[in-house]
């Protein structure tokens, strides 16, 4: 009986941790959206709003020394891997305190000190890179695991095919996580390919493929935990397809309504990962006050991130030639 109570408590604590992390990703992106719309940030950004359960469910199972290779929609992955929000936001602001010192921006953020091996401006390109990271991990024999995030828009590229084939044939410690949000920019997956099951493609490479509800952080967590353990124990790669959705357009400025209906967006919002998790916590008997305190804590974290990034210095123009080689 006490064991059951204890297990329930651990479960609640974990779920609360996931809730706070997902909320951090959500509020961070909404803040970026606001700053961007007010022309405070240079460049352009692809927001992760709606997909938080994937990054959090996966990265919560990683060790500090494990590596993540991310995508153009990668702020959430960086935060979930432990890069502080202030450091991510400072990079979006082009400040020296950003994780790439302002030389990268949204799609070129690198924080190897947190095992975060980069967002990427080229769809598909990080999949071979992640596979190489896994080759390095395997040869170094330190039990390191690599996670390769990509969208369903990447899986019709040659990069995907060649990379996962290497991962499988060399039995590398890598987990391929496809965030299937149904649209590659404006292109519906069903219009881009005849086989819309990404997980089923794993069979083509002699690899395990799993499909999971990407809006359910506990489901993602369980699937990722198994795949990561398998990779760490020498069992080779897994292709995990997370069914998810972005509420926002492809990039900030794209209304995202030319190629999908408002009804569809609304339907997916019914499955909102943050709200779903909150409801589950309440069902577990966690009281509303505790959740409100958690909300406030995360709001403060984001406010502090803004303050930090905004007050950070710009790079000196003279430093333009540094770090080319």
């Amino acid at each position, binding site marked *: 009986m006490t064991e059951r109570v204890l297990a329930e408590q651990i479960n609640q604590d974990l779920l609360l941790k996931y809730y706070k992390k997902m909320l951090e990703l959500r509020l961070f992106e909404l803040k970026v959206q606001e700053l961007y719309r007010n022309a405070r940030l240079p460049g352009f950004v692809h927001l992760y709003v709606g997909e938080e359960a994937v990054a959090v469910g996966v990265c919560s199972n990683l060790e500090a020394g494990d*590596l993540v*290779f991310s995508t153009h929609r990668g702020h959430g992955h960086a935060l979930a891997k432990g890069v502080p929000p202030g450091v991510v936001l400072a990079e979006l602001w082009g400040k020296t305190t950003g*994780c*790439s*010192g*302002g*030389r*990268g921006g949204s799609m*070129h953020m*690198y*924080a*190897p*000190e947190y095992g975060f*091996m*980069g967002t*990427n*401006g*080229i769809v598909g*390109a990080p*999949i*071979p*890179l*992640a*596979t*190489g*990271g*896994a*080759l*390095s*991990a395997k*040869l*170094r024999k330190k039990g390191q695991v*690599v996670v390769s995030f990509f969208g369903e828009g990447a899986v019709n590229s*040659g*990069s995907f*095919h*060649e*990379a996962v*084939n*290497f991962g499988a044939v*060399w039995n590398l410690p890598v987990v391929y996580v496809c965030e299937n949000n149904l649209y590659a920019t404006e292109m519906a997956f069903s219009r881009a390919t005849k086989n819309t099951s990404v997980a089923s493609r794993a069979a083509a490479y002699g690899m395990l493929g799993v499909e999971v509800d990407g809006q359910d952080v506990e489901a993602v967590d369980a699937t990722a935990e198994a795949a990561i353990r398998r990779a760490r124990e020498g069992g080779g790669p897994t292709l995990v397809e997370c069914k998810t959705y972005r509420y926002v357009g492809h990039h900030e400025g794209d209304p995202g309504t030319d190629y999908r209906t408002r009804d569809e967006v609304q339907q997916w919002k019914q499955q909102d990962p943050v709200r779903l998790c909150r409801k589950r916590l309440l069902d577990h008997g966690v009281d509303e006050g505790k959740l409100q305190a958690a909300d406030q804590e995360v709001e403060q974290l984001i406010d502090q991130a803004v303050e930090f990034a905004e007050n950070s210095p710009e790079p000196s123009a003279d430093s333009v030639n*540094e*770090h*080319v*080689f």
Partner: protein
Amino acid sequence: MSEPGRVITYADAGVEALREEMRRDDSIVYIGQGIGPRGGNFRQTRGLWKEFGDDRLRDTGICELGATGVAIGAAMAGTRTIVDEVFLDFALEAITQIVQQAANISYMSNGKIKAPVLIRGAMGSVRSAGAHHSHTFYNWFANTPGLKVVLPATPYDLKGLFKSALREPGPVVFVEHKSLYNTKGAVPEEEYLIPLGDARIVREGKDLTIVAMSRMVDLAAKAAASLAQEGISAEVIDPRTIVPLDRKKITDSIKKTGRLVVIDESPSSCSFAAELLAIAVEDCFDELRSIPKRICSLAVPNPFSPVLENQMIPSVDRIVSEVHNMMKQSGRKS
């Protein structure tokens, strides 16, 4: 080369460099097609698999994009890699990884991530290989910030440059010439390195400077020998690496001779030869005695017909004839 000692082939000089560096640094991993038991299409890895095995000599299928991306990713994660494209032409399958990822990573990460990857490929015209197997492309890579570009012309240079390239912190595009693999030259038994960015004066002279890379060095040297018999003294310089470029040694020579001819196996437009002419104008304008000249491959795809291919690429005769024309110019100073 006057130094005594062993004579080995260009291909074997590369094998020696690899063997020495792979023994010295046991993290080096070599990835490519046919580089394991087969020993490489050009015998460029002969015998290495026997010593280093499957883990470090990793044969791949025909998938340059994936293999190159994997090599770059492993390098980013701390494992020094070599990826062999075999023919430099095939690097185009992987060029997004080379140009977008490897070349940019140090800068994009504010110097926090380096990609110590050596991208190896054999270029150039040889025995009617045709349009798909003869490209030179080094100009493209030299035009990409973040890449170093090495073009060895002799077994001696190949070995010394290869060893240095395998100690570079970032990506190096190492471009060999297919027709040089079986050429021979003296290579000392004892270890040596040649730093990147150090041009070699192949032959000293005073009347004009000929700059040439890779296989064109041999043509330039032959042309210089022929010109010497007529009393024209040509200085021949091989930059050996075009990024970084030994600008000083080249411009010192141009200032001394007042004349520049560049031999380049690529087409002339937007080429390394064009860059050198620009450098001559920027740095040596007052000293130039005649109009600098590019002798390049013609701007056509590599033809199959031997007659057409010979017409396309620079030849000793063409170099000698262009130098004659140049020497007839009255000169801005006399």
